């Protein structure tokens, strides 16, 4: 391999909790592209940086793993990228934690056996003195035959630093060396393949021995590639237990080799070990205190999403309203202005309004992750979540879902296991988000008497609580169903490394927040703006009758509140109104008329729009005048039966419909953005709306 090339593709690999992503951030800064590996919900993060000689390095941050033998879809990515090398990765930087070099070197030796140009970056060298660690780097390089660097991603300044303590620049400088040396091979001395691969010795080159060994041992995950490129693997007999025994032997031999190497190069003064993390864990994971502290942390996170975010959200709302008013008064009153203000600007406002919530949630998530508490959440919550096919980490997205599903679904990014992440994404929309609250409040006020039972329990409050519980229960039940339906080759067992508690690196938190905001604004945001323009168009345009609104209204002078009735008349005759009428036969079995139909359709912009739409239809004027709206709704009569529209049965049916139906296109856009396919949002839409329809149908038919 020559260094004459202008661009080199490298991969960053390492065990979890080695500061791999920190190093990636320091090397590439914010110049990164986040995508997905085809067909799976595993993020593909790539960035670019330049060496002093002008060579461009494209760096791919592969998921954290302990070895090339995968335990999940994410780890499978590492195996496939490096073994089958679909992307032409030319070399690998292995990141290791200085505190636990031995364990980190299993993966390193495997990569060396694969024949990849490798470089070892030993991270957290700033802790050496405190921990009493000494390393002979020169000797380590000689024994391994590869460049080895001591670095500190934490101490490193920004990318491009020259003399910083983190030695990131020095690391960059030595990248070319990994292509010149000859790395030590380990596997060929182990003699493990005798029973199996020897059958085909004549077909494989010696330096491909390990590659074939992995192909053979992981054949169930590499089916496709084996059939196409390595069909001889299928001819070999395969005994799972025997192979596992050999793999275990391989690890023992690797540890033996690693111990030999480290005995000469690595020393740790055990007396300096403080047991700090274990001591903190005895409190934070305590039988009672552990759960109380966890509850307090979660409670503050959600308080912040609710109350802290509402301040900037009000500003955003205010600024966009002001700006839109300004444009309306200063621009000519025509179609284009309306499109700009009520369509495009309102759409953008609908995206920006999520920014504070996403920023705050990710600020907390990044903080908890950086400090090491995230793994403790998994530890504390696994017993509850695991029977439902969820990760302990799913607790955070699920609970955040009570504020808003959009940031919550993005919060599922912290779940490494792609199946658990997918299930979390798909079930979070069931949680009672704050947009459902205005709908719930008005309907509950309408159908549930304001009474107390047993003299203390408020009946309306009880109904609201029941709805929240319903949301949570249906999320868990759906998760359970999905976990049975979504196939996985991997058996689930709980093995989790508990990282050391650390002070957070502020830069990493900043980057996490910015990355996620970008992903939302430029990913889901585009879809949200497009959707809201469509809804705006449908609600403000209509055929002939719509265009004659004003003359029609003037003809029938019986209206007292003309201004408002024009709006109602327009909405009724707009395309959306026509659609609302058209779906009436479908929703009549649920007890709804076309007016509710229109409100259901406008709810797609956001559920709370239900209330303002009804206000428009019933010509209440100010949507905030809930009392007046309630009175109007109470008096509203069904045209066919002459009975009140909002009976108890209709109310319950509506509550159930809003509890289950997927009526939020921002959520659908976010699911699309996170899973990188329209398949999942479409499934969620039909699944949730289907449940909504059926339950509302049953409720109405049995209560009416």
């Amino acid at each position, binding site marked *: 391999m020559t260094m004459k090339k202008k661009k080199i593709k490298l991969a960053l690999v390492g065990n979890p909790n080695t500061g791999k992503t920190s190093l990636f951030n320091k090397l590439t800064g914010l110049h990164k592209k986040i995508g997905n590996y085809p067909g799976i919900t595993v993020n593909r993060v790539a960035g670019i940086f330049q060496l002093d000689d002008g060579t461009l390095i494209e760096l791919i941050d592969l998921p954290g793993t302990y070895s090339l*033998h995968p335990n999940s879809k994410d780890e499978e990515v590492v195996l496939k990228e490096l073994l089958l090398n679909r992307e032409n990765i030319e070399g690998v930087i292995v990141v290791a934690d200085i505190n636990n070099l031995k364990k980190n070197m299993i993966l390193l030796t495997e990569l060396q056996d694969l024949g990849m140009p490798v470089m070892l970056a030993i991270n957290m060298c700033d802790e050496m003195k405190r921990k009493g660690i000494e390393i002979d780097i020169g000797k380590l390089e000689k024994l391994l035959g590869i460049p080895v660097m001591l670095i500190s991603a934490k101490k490193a300044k920004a990318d491009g630093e020259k003399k910083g303590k983190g030695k990131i620049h020095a690391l960059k400088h030595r990248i070319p060396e990994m292509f010149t040396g000859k790395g030590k091979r380990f596997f060929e001395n182990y003699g493990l393949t005798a029973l199996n691969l020897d059958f085909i010795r004549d077909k494989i080159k010696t330096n491909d021995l390990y590659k074939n060994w992995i192909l053979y041992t992981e054949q169930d995950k590499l089916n496709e590639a084996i059939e196409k490129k390595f069909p001889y693997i299928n001819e070999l007999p395969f005994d799972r237990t025997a192979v596992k025994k050999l793999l275990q032997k391989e690890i023992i031999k690797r540890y033996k080799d690693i111990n030999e190497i480290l005995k000469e190069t690595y020393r740790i003064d055990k007396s300096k070990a403080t047991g700090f993390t274990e001591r903190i864990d005895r409190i934070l994971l305590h039988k009672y205190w552990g759960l109380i502290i966890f509850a307090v942390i979660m409670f503050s996170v959600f308080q912040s999403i609710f109350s802290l975010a509402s301040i900037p959200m009000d500003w955003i709302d205010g600024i966009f309203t002001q700006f839109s008013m300004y444009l309306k008064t200063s621009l000519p009153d025509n179609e284009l202005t309306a499109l700009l203000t009520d369509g495009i600007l309102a759409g953008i406002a609908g995206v920006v309004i999520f920014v504070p919530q996403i920023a705050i949630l990710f600020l907390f998530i990044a903080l908890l992750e950086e400090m090491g508490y995230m793994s403790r959440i998994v530890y504390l919550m696994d017993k509850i979540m695991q029977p439902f096919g969820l990760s302990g980490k799913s607790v955070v997205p699920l609970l955040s879902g009570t504020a808003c599903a959009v940031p919550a679904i993005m919060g599922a990014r912290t779940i490494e296991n792609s199946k658990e992440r997918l299930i979390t994404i798909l079930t979070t929309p069931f949680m009672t988000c704050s947009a459902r609250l205005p709908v719930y409040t008005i309907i509950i006020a309408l159908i549930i008497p304001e009474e107390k039972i047993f003299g203390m329990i408020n009946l309306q409050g009880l109904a609201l609580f029941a709805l929240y519980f319903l949301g949570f229960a249906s999320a868990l039940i759906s998760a359970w169903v999905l976990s049975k339906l979504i196939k996985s080759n991997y058996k689930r067992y709980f093995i989790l*490394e508990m990282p050391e508690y650390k002070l957070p690196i502020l830069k990493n938190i900043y980057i996490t927040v910015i990355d996620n905001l970008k992903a939302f604004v430029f990913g889901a945001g585009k879809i949200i703006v497009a959707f809201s323009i469509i809804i705006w168009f449908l609600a403000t345009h209509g055929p002939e009758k719509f265009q004659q609104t004003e003359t029609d209204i003037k003809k029938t002078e019986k209206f007292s509140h003309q201004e408002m009735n024009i709006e109602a008349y327009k909405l009724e005759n707009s395309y959306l109104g026509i659609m609302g009428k058209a779906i009436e036969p479908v929703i009549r079995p649920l007890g709804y008329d076309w007016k509710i139909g229109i409100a259901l359709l406008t709810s797609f912009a956001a559920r709370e729009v239900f209330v303002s739409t009804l206000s428009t239809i019933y010509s209440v004027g100010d949507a905030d005048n809930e009392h007046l709206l309630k009175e109007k709704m109470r008096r509203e009569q069904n045209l066919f039966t002459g009975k009140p529209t909002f009976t108890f049965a209709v109310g319950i049916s509506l509550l159930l419909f809003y509890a289950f139906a997927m009526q939020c296109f921002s959520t659908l856009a976010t699911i699309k953005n996170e899973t990188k396919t329209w398949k999942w949002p479409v499934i969620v839409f039909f699944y949730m709306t289907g449940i909504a329809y059926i339950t509302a149908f049953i409720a109405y038919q049995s209560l009416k």
Partner: protein
Amino acid sequence: MKLTELKPSQKGIAINCENSLLPLKLMEMGCVDGVEIEFINKAPLGSPYYYKIGGTRIALGKEIAEMIDVKPTKKHDDNEEEKN
């Protein structure tokens, strides 16, 4: 004795990690025969269990921890020199 039978802070030496029922990942993380394991804590809801295995803090599901056998060492053992 089973790994789950250790008392808090008690240590033991692993003796059957190379058992083909255990996931390979465990060995990759350093849980091999002869390694010293210290029990740190049990999750409030009864599982997982939290150990220090060699130099690594690892939480294990109950069903996994039950499959590992250890030979308990005395609580205050001078024999802590674990060669790296």
